[in-house]
């Protein structure tokens, strides 16, 4: 308002806002905001059942009726359906509104069984709470209530009690609109309306647990929590899920030192309150009876026997010390670590690289992407990828199978925000139907396809990687005309990671402004990489050459030569060159794509020392087993695929004498005669801030300040560095110390970071707000795959959400959900086999053969065979087929 006279009377209404009166109070609401949301944001709660801020309103329950006056007199309106308008008057407690709310509650309760004493929801039930606040004191209903058989299962983990249901449409809307699994529906009509599944179509959704959380009554219950505790007996702590790398925020709830439930927390930039079932019900593994509670030592008779920590550590360190004496630091290798918190990971990196002096450490098991790529590419957030109007190029795994909540965010972006998705995948995935274009490229040739898409040029061959030239031109046009984000990951384990790295490099060269979202799956793989848990890297995404200087005086030594990655470590171990092999929560026998190499590697290492939660197949091969504390038992931070650092909380004590990984590292260091210098997880950040500018101003406290954590900017912007230094407390001076800057520098005076650091190549004036250029990504050499043999099929090995992973195998409710090993081929190819669907087929690679049931599947293109890895049912583990040294794996599928 420009008129000063008016400005005195009415407060100025900013652009994009409207002034609304709610219960006599003037509030400012955003244009387009719903009355119910604007009122809640400004402190007036309007009761509701069907309204959910993350779903389209439907106005069904009528609980949010209030009197709204837009100039034509007050009228009862559902506040979840009405958008605010300038000058609107809302009365939430008028006699008419109160009578309507009371009436609705009475209606909802007439057929509700009121079995609160035996209902899991009792104590945290919106129906209970709102009846207390807004409802009638007693019911006038004297007739017979509606009866149904109860409860009945709608899926393997969710049960429905149709008598308790108030038909708010939350679960059904979630299933249809959010998850895209429209498997539960309203059935019948009127007072007989019920939510149910159709016969033989269970609510088999990866996201079914969310319906239990958003159910406003106790109609939907989940088997893992049923009758386990009353809500008022639970205490909770906010934490971040570590089932995959999306980093969904949630609370962990426990009672009597036992984890009983996880509930999603709405973290706006990440999970919007949703969790996948694998994350939500994975808590059963925390409580598993098979958790390791004491160290184990291999005795003379080759059996693992329980031991004390001092005996186990003594044995571990003496073997380690002898190994170092015998073969030097290069004889020590560390596999795994992406399960750990950032602090644990740093402790182990410091132990391996800074104290032992080996660079043979890899938190990935050759199932991801080169560490230099992840550390060197410009990084996007989920919000950036999903920004309205953009284009997302997905060159990676099916997000629904590996990063389920990222799938929900992408789905929403595509369906609601006009984002176009281009998927490059060798087989049809659960995400393909969302894509504007989904291209079935021949395995092993993705880099060629990506190059063609970036610049089709005039002399495009008739096909590239199996994609026709006209399709390439169509897609290239789409990629070229709108803002682009690339999601890059490793979908197919038979395909060499270098092909994807080369594709990413090509994008980076052609479109330097394009940011990448990493689709590496393991929980804290990004955090581990940021801590330097990969050969050639140091903490803060620095190379050995660039990061060494900052470590002088902090680490006793720093490796000078790039060490071996996982495949290299296992090959060296198989050749007898690795004396001591640490497994940090790694199970290479099942997770490394090349089973044969993993077996030879474990057998070839002189001493294998494992820290783990469970006695996995690989851990059984170890000589020393150290029980580790796991999720909900340790505190610290974790980093998601965006580079967002959030806290994880300790809620219960670990089983037996299990220890945090940083404590184990610290103990080993002490026995080697060094002080790791870590006495608490928080303390790690003091050191990290000192040694790596990437972490300036970052600490668990900073991550917790704003509930959404802290995103590591990459490339960093000069302005943000200033900002952090101006606002953070102890960080800047230590940072300044480490950089040798003048202590008297005032905030805002830029403290020049080392110009050698890749993130801080500052422009000529030194104060450019533009993103700094990252150094060019390395070149990856790609071996072109051989021509496809006319009789063979090119193998595609992908992951399913439910497999034989360690956590799933120990989660009682989920362990039956893995589908089992099946080889899938195109119906045309299947016809040639002369077999019936489900019969065992012999799948033969250059390595070996396995027998697995075969199925025709239209989602698999001709010439390709699809196997899901880590599934049970195959006669031998299917990753035995894969040779990690080849660019692709060709197989023959035959009648046995």
């Amino acid at each position, binding site marked *: 308002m420009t008129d000063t006279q008016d400005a005195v009377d009415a407060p100025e209404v900013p652009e994009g806002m409207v002034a609304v009166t709610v219960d006599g109070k003037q509030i400012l609401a955003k244009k387009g905001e719903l009355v119910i949301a604007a009122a809640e944001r400004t402190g007036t709660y309007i009761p509701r059942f069907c309204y959910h801020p993350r779903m389209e309103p*439907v*106005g*069904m*329950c*009528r*609980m949010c*009726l209030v009197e709204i006056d837009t100039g034509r007199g007050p*009228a*009862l309106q*559902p506040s979840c*359906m009405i958008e605010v308008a300038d000058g609107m008057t809302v009365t939430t407690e008028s006699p*008419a509104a109160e*009578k*309507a709310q*009371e*009436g*609705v509650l*009475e*209606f*909802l309760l*007439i*057929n509700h069984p009121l079995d609160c004493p035996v209902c899991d929801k009792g104590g945290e039930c919106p129906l209970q709470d709102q009846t207390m606040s807004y409802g009638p004191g007693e019911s*006038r*209903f*004297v*007739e*017979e*209530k509606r*009866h149904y058989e109860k409860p009945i299962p709608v899926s393997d983990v969710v049960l429905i009690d149709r008598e308790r249901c*108030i*038909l708010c449409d939350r679960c059904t809307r979630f299933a249809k609109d959010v998850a895209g699994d429209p498997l539960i*529906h*309203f059935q*019948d*009509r*009127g*007072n*007989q*309306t019920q939510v149910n599944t159709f016969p033989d179509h269970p609510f088999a959704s990866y996201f079914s647990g969310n319906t239990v959380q958003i159910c406003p009554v106790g109609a939907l219950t989940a088997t893992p929590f049923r009758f386990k505790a009353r809500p008022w007996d639970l205490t909770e702590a906010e934490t971040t899920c570590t089932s995959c790398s999306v980093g969904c925020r949630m609370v962990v709830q426990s009672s009597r030192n036992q984890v009983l439930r996880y509930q999603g927390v709405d973290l706006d930039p990440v999970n919007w309150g949703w969790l996948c079932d694998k994350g939500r019900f994975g808590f059963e593994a925390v409580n598993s009876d098979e958790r390791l509670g004491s160290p184990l030592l291999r005795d003379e008779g080759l059996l693992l026997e329980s031991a004390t920590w001092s005996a186990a550590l003594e044995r571990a360190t003496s073997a380690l010390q002898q190994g170092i004496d015998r073969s030097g630091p290069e004889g020590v290798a560390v596999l795994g670590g992406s399960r750990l918190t950032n602090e644990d990971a740093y402790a182990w990196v410091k132990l391996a690289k800074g104290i032992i002096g080996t660079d043979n450490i890899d938190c990935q098991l050759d199932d991801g992407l080169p560490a230099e790529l992840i550390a060197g590419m410009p990084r996007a957030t989920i919000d950036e990828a999903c920004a309205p109007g953009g284009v997302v190029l997905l060159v990676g795994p099916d997000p629904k199978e590996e990063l389920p909540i990222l799938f929900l965010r992408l789905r929403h972006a595509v369906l609601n925000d006009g984002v176009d998705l281009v998927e490059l995948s060798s087989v049809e995935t659960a995400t393909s139907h969302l894509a504007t274009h989904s291209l079935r490229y021949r395995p092993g040739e993705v880099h060629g396809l990506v190059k063609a898409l970036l610049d089709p040029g005039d002399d495009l061959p008739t096909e590239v990687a199996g994609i026709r030239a006209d399709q390439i031109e169509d897609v290239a046009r789409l990629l070229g005309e709108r803002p682009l984000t690339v999601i890059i990951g490793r979908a197919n384990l038979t395909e060499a990671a270098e092909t994807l790295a080369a594709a990413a490099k090509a994008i980076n060269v052609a479109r330097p402004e394009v940011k990448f979202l990493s689709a590496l799956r393991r929980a804290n793989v990004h955090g581990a990489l940021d801590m330097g848990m990969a050969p050639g890297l140091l903490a803060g995404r620095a190379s050995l050459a660039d990061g060494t200087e900052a470590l002088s005086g902090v680490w006793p030594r720093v490796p000078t030569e790039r060490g071996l990655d996982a495949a290299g470590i296992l090959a060296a171990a198989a050749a007898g060159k690795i004396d001591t092999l640490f497994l940090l929560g790694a199970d290479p026998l099942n997770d490394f794509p090349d089973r044969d190499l993993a077996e030879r590697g474990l057998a070839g290492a002189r001493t294998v020392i494992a820290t783990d939660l469970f006695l996995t197949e690989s851990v059984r091969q170890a000589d020393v087993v150290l029980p580790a504390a796991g999720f909900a038992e340790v505190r610290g931070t974790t980093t998601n695929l965006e580079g967002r650092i959030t806290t994880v909380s300790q809620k219960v004590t670990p089983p037996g004498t299990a220890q945090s990984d940083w404590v184990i590292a610290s103990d080993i260091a002490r026995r080697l005669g060094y002080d790791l210098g870590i006495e608490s997880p928080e303390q790690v950040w003091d050191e990290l801030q000192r040694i790596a500018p990437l972490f300036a101003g970052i600490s668990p406290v900073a991550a917790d300040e704003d509930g959404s954590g802290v995103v590591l900017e990459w490339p960093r912007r000069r302005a943000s560095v200033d900002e952090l230094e101006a606002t953070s407390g102890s960080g800047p001076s230590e940072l300044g110390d480490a950089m040798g800057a003048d202590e008297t520098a005032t905030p805002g005076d830029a403290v020049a970071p080392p110009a050698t650091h890749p993130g801080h190549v500052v422009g000529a004036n030194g104060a450019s707000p533009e993103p700094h250029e990252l150094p060019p990504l390395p070149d990856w050499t790609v071996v072109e795959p051989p021509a496809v043999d006319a009789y063979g099929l090119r193998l595609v090995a992908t992951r399913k959400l439910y497999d034989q992973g360690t956590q799933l195998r120990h989660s009682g409710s989920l362990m039956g959900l893995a589908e089992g090993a099946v080889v899938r081929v195109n119906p045309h190819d299947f016809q040639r086999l002369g077999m019936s669907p489900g019969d065992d087929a012999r799948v033969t690679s250059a390595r070996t053969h396995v027998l697995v049931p075969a199925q025709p599947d239209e989602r698999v293109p001709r010439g390709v065979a699809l196997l899901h890895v880590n599934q049970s049912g195959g006669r031998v583990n299917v990753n035995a087929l894969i040779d990690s040294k080849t660019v692709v794996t060709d197989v023959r599928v035959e009648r046995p």
Partner: protein
Amino acid sequence: MSEAGPREIPRIVSSRWDLEDGFTLDRYESTGGYTALRKALDTMTPAQVGEEVKAASLLGRGGAGFPAGVKWGFCPPGVFPRYLVVNGDESEPGTYKDRLLMERDPHQLIEGILIAAYAIGCGQAFLYVRGEMALAQERLAGALNDAYAAGYIGRNIMGSEFSLDVVLHWGAGAYIVGEETALIESLEGNRGMPRLKPPFFPAAKGLYLQPTVVNNVETLSNLPWIVSNGGGAFAELGAEKSTGTRLFAVSGHVNNPGVFEVEFGVTTFRDLLYGKQYGDGIRNGHRLKAFIPGGASAPWFYEEHLDLPLEAGAVGGAGSMLGSGAIVVMDETTDAVKAAWRVVRFFARESCGKCTPCREGTAWLEKILRRMIDGQGRKGDVDKLMDVCDNISPQITWPPKQTTICPLGPSAVSPIASAVLRFKDEFEALCQGDAEVSVAINGKAYLSQPVQPEQPEPAEAPA
């Protein structure tokens, strides 16, 4: 009965009902069929057709009575595609006029659809016919095939630039689908549940979220006559605001139930119920007790309302509505409670279940009334009945307010409110019991016998 009786008027929509073969294309063409369409295509622009319909002041015949020409104008200009949806899901109890129009003169409806589509500028019309109307579906399907074959529907109709496809869709038996947004949901293949207005006003966001005009069968059937004879000629018939003729379906306790085309707005209820050529008086010499003037959802009228003209304003002013033109007559042998219960039971069964007050409220009302009829009424039940009504339709006013999404909930309130207000003694007579409540699980009885108070122990005899 009015003194002069109704004057002679042309039969606008029912002219072919008496012909055995009125539904055939041959007979339709030989009785002037498709000349209006030719006239519109050859001599009029779409806007002129719209103007003609506005001049006719043709009110929608589906129940709400909104002027058809004005409704067409609500489509946002320049937004295409747009659709015409014909609401043939006639299912209000007592209403059966559209069924006759579809069974006996399907081509007249088709010609009306073509004229409307031409005026609106749409190339695709959907004809949604109630699932139970087998003969109407058969005749319409046949008529559509004939009209396609004869070039009345399809590409470049009658050599003009105008093209139209008509899709015939059968309902699956839900009353609520007569509500236009629920009909659109059903047509899209979803569960028939109403959408919220705003934002889903069909003219702006209708079928497939495109601008959509939803018109009633009778409304469209008037268009050929209006185009042939001019909007002015139509407006000369009837009252000032209720022009033309209108079909009324008379049922219940009259000697001659049926659908009658009468002059709109000037004919009275007395004419219609007692006129020789119409209802011909109450059956068996009984007296009128009450009648429903406009479909089951309308508040009831009584003897004193007989001289009201059949005109929306007059009927509305008297506290009811003409609605879909269904007049249900009850003589004095009718039990008001049972009658109310029958109507409420219909609405309870037809409630779609989407919003709470309707889903739970109508079923509860039905249970209370049933309980009364079964002799289990309790003191206070009448007040409770009215308060439950009030929670569905606040203040039980007319026109009704509603806590529900659509007017189905308040529809169940009207008959109860009417009956209780007029025949309270009949209700009170059923509510004398003071039985204690007992909920019989899986049993039929709602209430047990009164519990006998425990007899006090006889005082001990003094020693």
